[in-house]
């Protein structure tokens, strides 16, 4: 519900080049190999592919636009700095970068204040981020529609758990508190929900 609501907020306003599954394929992999060797021009192409997804992930969690841009910049610089450590056999570059982005956003949000103090329960459950600018490209729209469709195949609790954890950056303990569910339930729903999403989206490691 929550995640779908988040995605429903997107509107077509601007065309940008952003990472799609196609772009996350060999091209980005090849570019990352060049970045790992210190190629700054390759990094500028990597930026074109990943900046929008990184900002999207960070802003979903942080909400605050200025902070999101700041963290996005930090993430992109970290991508440059640690590119030599990226290993293709551990997953695609896009996954690596978005995982990094999500973690940095979480680090920021948890360092600033406890998530429970951030917002009231009702706000967390009902609020959707106010995305004031929105990007759209055909691949992104398809990606979004596919994710939205797959989120609909989850149970209500699975969907809430996944979206509160991923899009809101809550710990599973906070999710349990918010939804008044036992810890074990949230833990397993997070896992079941992601497994169902994995199968629906056809994700492989």
């Amino acid at each position, binding site marked *: 519900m929550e995640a779908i609501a988040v995605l429903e907020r997107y509107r077509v306003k601007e065309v940008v080049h952003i990472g799609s599954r196609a772009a996350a394929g060999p091209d980005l992999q090849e570019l990352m190999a060049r970045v790992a060797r210190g190629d700054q021009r390759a990094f500028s192409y990597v930026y074109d592919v990943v*900046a*929008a997804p990184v900002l999207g992930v960070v802003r979903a969690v942080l909400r605050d636009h200025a902070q999101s841009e700041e963290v996005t910049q930090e993430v992109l610089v970290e991508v440059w700095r640690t590119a030599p*450590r990226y290993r293709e056999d551990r997953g695609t570059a896009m996954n690596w970068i*978005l995982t990094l982005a999500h973690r940095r956003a979480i680090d920021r949000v948890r360092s600033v204040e406890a998530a429970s103090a951030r917002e009231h329960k009702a706000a967390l459950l009902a609020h959707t981020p106010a995305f004031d600018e929105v990007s759209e490209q055909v691949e992104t729209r398809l990606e979004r529609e596919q994710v939205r469709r797959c989120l609909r195949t989850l149970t209500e609790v699975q969907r809430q758990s996944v979206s509160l*954890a*991923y899009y809101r950056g809550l710990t599973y303990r906070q999710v349990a508190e918010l939804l008044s569910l036992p810890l*074990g339930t949230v833990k397993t729903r997070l896992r079941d929900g*992601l*497994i169902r999403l994995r199968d629906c989206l056809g994700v492989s490691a």
Partner: protein
Amino acid sequence: MTHGVDPHTLTGAYATDALGDEERRTFEEHLTRCPSCLLEVRELTATAARLGLAAAASPRRTMKDEVLRRVTTVRQEPPFTESAGQARALRHRARHASRWALAACAAAATALGGTTVWQHQRADEARERARQTQERSEDLAGLMAAPDARTRTAKLAGGASATIVVSDSRNQAAFLAAGMAKPPRGKVYQLWFQDQGSMRSAGLLDPESTTTATLMKGPVGKATGMGMTVEPAGGSPEPTSPPVALLALPT
């Protein structure tokens, strides 16, 4: 583990970064021993990334120039063989291993995170491994066999294992390692003695070999530790990158 619960069920919480710091570290420890968990974590992390892709939003146009300008002043880290998750676990461990860090490099090592060493004193095992190493020279063999030879073994990031052997009577040290990542093309591992806060070159390792038993160049002297850095081919007069290994000499 977490309240005695099967850690396996934490894969979803881990993939969505929904664990607290302590739980995450515990789970990452578990991951190193659970290949099936690792596979599931990778799949679920990739799934979570799809949720992220669907949320893409365009940054303001000026951000690109700012980021590109910033990276021109940022030095890249040397390659290493660890996942981000392991790096985080290692960073945690590195903090607790600070007593081993050489004074001159401690700050760099902390910043470097995942590549500091943590150590186990298993002298007998190390000596046995040293004996089995085929590449050793006469000198090396002599050093190993010295009655006052002392050893210290450490795990390097990426799973490699390193041993330092020191003999006071011979005033020599040797560095042994197995399973190291190859240095990047055009780079070489360089060994250093650490004296009173400065680093003194102790020779280069063969860039083609991931297993080594090398007599360190020069006398041990008053050195209290040794380090290893990644340097341009041919080596450098002093370290130009943060150390990928740091060991206090065995006492």
